[in-house]
C-alpha cells in the first residue's frame, strides 16, 4: 500500500472534502500563503483560492467565533489552531457556542464545524506550549473529540469529522506530522467513536491515544522480549469513548494500564478507570494503573520534560506492577 506522511493525510482529507462540498473552507493562522505552520495545508491555497483557504490574523477567539457563526448559517468550516494550546483564548466559542447551540436552540441550529491542530507537548517548549486539553474538551457534551495516532486514522477520522453534523475537535501532534504510514489511494471514512485494537496480546491491556501511543508500543515491544504479551488499544476518540472494546479486552487480559499524555486529575484515564471497575470489577486481577504526565506544568529543561512525560520505562514499570512482576 501507498506510504504517506501524517501531514499529507491531513491535507488529502481536507482537500478531498473541499472538492466534494463547496461549503467546506479552511481558516487559520498561516494556513494559506505559508502552506500551514506544519505544512498540513500545502498546496491548498493554489487549488482552492483565498475564498476557501483563509489566512487570519492572530485572533483565535475572533476567527473561531466567526466560523461558528458561519456554521450556524450553513457553511462547514475547518478551523485550524496552530496548536490547541492557543485554543484557550477561543474556548468560550467552542464550549459556550459550538457545543451548546443545537441544544439551546431546541434543535433549530446545529454547528457542523471542525477545530483541528496539534495538541500536547512537542519537545522542550515549556509550560504554555505543552498542554493536552483532550480531557477538557471531552468533558463537554455537544462536542466530539478525536485523536488520531497514525496517517490512516488521521485521514479517515478527519473526513468523518468534516462530514459530521456536530462540532468535532481533531487533535493531532507536531511530533506526528512527519510520521509515515499506509494510506490507501481509494476513499475511506472511519466512524467516530470506535477504538481499535492495534496490537493483540493476552497478558495486559494497554489503553492509550494520540502521539503517546508510541510510548505504549515501545513498552509492549520491549516486554515481548521477556515473553509478556501486551494488547494495545488506540482509543482514537475520547468523546464518545468506545468502552465496549476496552472492557472486552480487559475481561480477556484481566489487567490494564492506561497511558495518557495529560495531567492526572479528571483525565481520560480517570474516566476509563471508573468504567473498568464498574463493568469489569470481577475480571480484574490487579488495580488499574495509569501513566500520565506529572501533576505539574511542563518544564523546559531536558531532565525536567523527561521527568514530566510518560516514557516506555514508566509504562514498563506500570505493566510489571499489574503483573506483580516486581
Amino acid at each position, binding site marked *: 500500500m501507498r506510504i504517506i506522511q501524517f501531514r499529507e493525510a491531513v491535507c488529502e482529507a481536507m482537500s478531498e472534502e473541499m472538492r466534494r462540498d463547496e461549503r467546506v473552507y479552511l481558516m487559520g493562522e498561516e494556513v494559506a500563503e505559508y502552506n500551514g505552520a506544519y505544512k498540513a495545508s500545502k498546496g491548498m491555497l493554489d487549488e482552492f483560492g483565498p475564498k476557501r483557504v483563509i489566512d487570519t490574523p492572530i485572533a483565535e477567539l475572533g476567527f473561531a467565533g*466567526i466560523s461558528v*457563526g458561519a456554521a450556524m448559517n450553513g457553511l462547514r468550516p475547518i478551523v485550524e489552531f496552530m496548536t490547541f494550546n492557543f485554543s484557550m483564548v477561543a474556548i468560550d466559542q467552542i464550549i459556550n457556542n459550538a457545543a451548546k447551540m443545537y441544544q439551546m436552540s431546541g434543535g433549530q441550529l446545529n454547528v457542523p464545524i471542525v477545530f483541528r491542530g496539534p495538541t500536547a507537548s512537542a519537545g522542550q517548549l515549556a509550560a504554555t506550549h505543552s498542554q493536552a486539553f483532550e480531557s477538557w474538551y471531552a468533558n463537554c457534551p455537544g462536542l466530539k473529540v478525536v485523536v488520531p495516532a497514525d496517517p490512516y486514522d488521521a485521514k479517515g477520522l478527519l473526513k468523518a469529522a468534516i462530514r459530521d453534523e456536530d462540532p468535532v475537535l481533531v487533535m493531532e501532534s507536531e511530533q506526528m506530522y512527519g510520521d509515515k504510514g499506509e494510506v490507501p489511494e481509494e476513499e475511506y471514512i472511519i466512524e467516530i467513536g470506535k477504538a481499535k485494537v492495534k496490537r493483540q496480546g493476552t497478558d495486559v491491556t494497554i489503553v492509550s491515544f494520540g502521539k503517546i501511543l508510541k510510548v505504549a508500543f515501545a513498552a509492549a515491544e520491549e516486554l515481548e522480549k521477556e515473553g509478556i504479551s501486551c494488547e494495545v488499544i488506540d482509543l482514537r476518540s475520547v468523546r464518545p469513548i468506545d468502552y465496549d472494546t476496552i472492557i472486552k479486552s480487559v475481561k480477556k487480559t484481566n489487567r490494564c494500564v492506561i497511558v495518557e499524555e495529560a495531567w492526572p486529575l479528571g483525565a481520560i484515564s480517570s474516566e476509563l478507570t471508573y468504567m473498568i471497575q464498574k463493568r469489569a470489577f470481577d475480571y480484574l486481577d490487579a488495580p488499574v494503573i495509569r501513566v500520565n504526565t506529572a501533576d505539574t506544568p511542563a518544564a523546559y529543561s531536558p531532565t525536567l520534560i523527561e521527568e514530566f512525560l510518560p516514557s516506555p520505562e514508566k509504562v514498563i514499570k506500570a505493566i510489571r506492577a499489574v503483573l506483580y512482576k516486581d
Partner: protein
Amino acid sequence: MPKKPITKEVYLKWYEDMLFWRRFEDKTSALYIQQKIRGFLHLYNGQEAVLAGSLLAMEHGDKMITAYRNHVQPIGLGEDPRRIMAELMGKVDGTSRGKGGSMHMFSKEHHFYGGHGIVGGQIPLGAGLAFADKYNGKNHVTLTYMGDGAVRQGSFHETMNLAMLWNLPVVFVIENNGYAMGTSVERTANHTEIWKLGLGYEMPCLPVDAMDPVTVYEAMQDAVDRARSGGGPTLIEARTYRYKGHSMSDAQHYRTKEEVAEYQKLDPITIVLDRIKENNYATEEEIETIDQRVKDLVKECVDFAEASPFPDKEELWQHIYVQKDYPFIKE
C-alpha cells in the same frame, strides 16, 4: 436605497409593536414574581425604539443576533409570541422546547440567531453569519447587537478587525443603556463616546439617539445599505435607557429614581404616540382598540404558555447531537 417614508402605517405599527413588547415584558416580570418564570430575566423596557427602527430597515433574509435581553426581538421578526412566553415558562411548546429559557431565544425560521448568555460571545457569531452570506453570494445583512458592557470584551475588538479585514455585510449595534449591570459606562473605560471605538478600525461609526425609532431607522438604513452594497460594516452606538433593573434581582442602587424619571419623559412609546396624536393618525378610539388588542394578545400568550406542558424528562437528552444514536454515558 432611499429612506422609507415614516407613514401613518409605520407609526401605528411601531406603536402597537412597541406597546406589545412593553406589556409582554411587564407580564413576564409579574410571572417572575409568581415564580412561573425562573432563572434570570432581563427586560427590554425603554429600549424598544432600537428594535422598532432596526426592523424597518431590514429586508427578508436579513439576520439578527443579540445577547440575553432578547425576548422581543424574535417576536418583532415574526416569531409567535406565545412560543416565546412558553419558552420563558420552560414549557415544551417554547421555541427551544424549554431548554433555552429567558437568555436563549432562537427562531431560525425568522432569521433570529439568538439569544446569547455570555457577554460579547455573540459578536463574532454575528460576523460569522454575515461571512456565510457573503461566501454564498447572498445579498443579506446581519444586524449584530450588544450592550455597552460587551464592548470591553476582546471578542468585540477581534470581530471589529476581522469584519473590516474581510469587508463583511454586518451592522454592529451597541445598545448603550448606560449600565453594564450596575457599572456605568464611565466606570468601564477612560472615555464614554463608545462609537469612537470604530475609528481605530476605520469602520464607519456614529452615535444615534435611540429613544426615537425614526433616528434609529435612518442610521440603520444607511448602515444596512452600505453592508448590502459591499461597503462593509458599520458601528452604531444606539443611546438608549432601560427602565427596569439589569435583571429582576437588581436593587438598582447605582442610579437614582430621578435619573430613571428623566428618561421616562423620553419614553419611545410616548414619543410615537404623541406623533400619532399630533398628526391625527388615529382617533382615541382607534388607539384604545390597539391597546385592547395588545392586552388580549399578552393574555393569549400567557394562556398558551400555561396550557403547554413541561417537557418530559427524556427531552433532556434531545438536541445535544444531531447524531441520533450518540452513546451518552448513563452509568
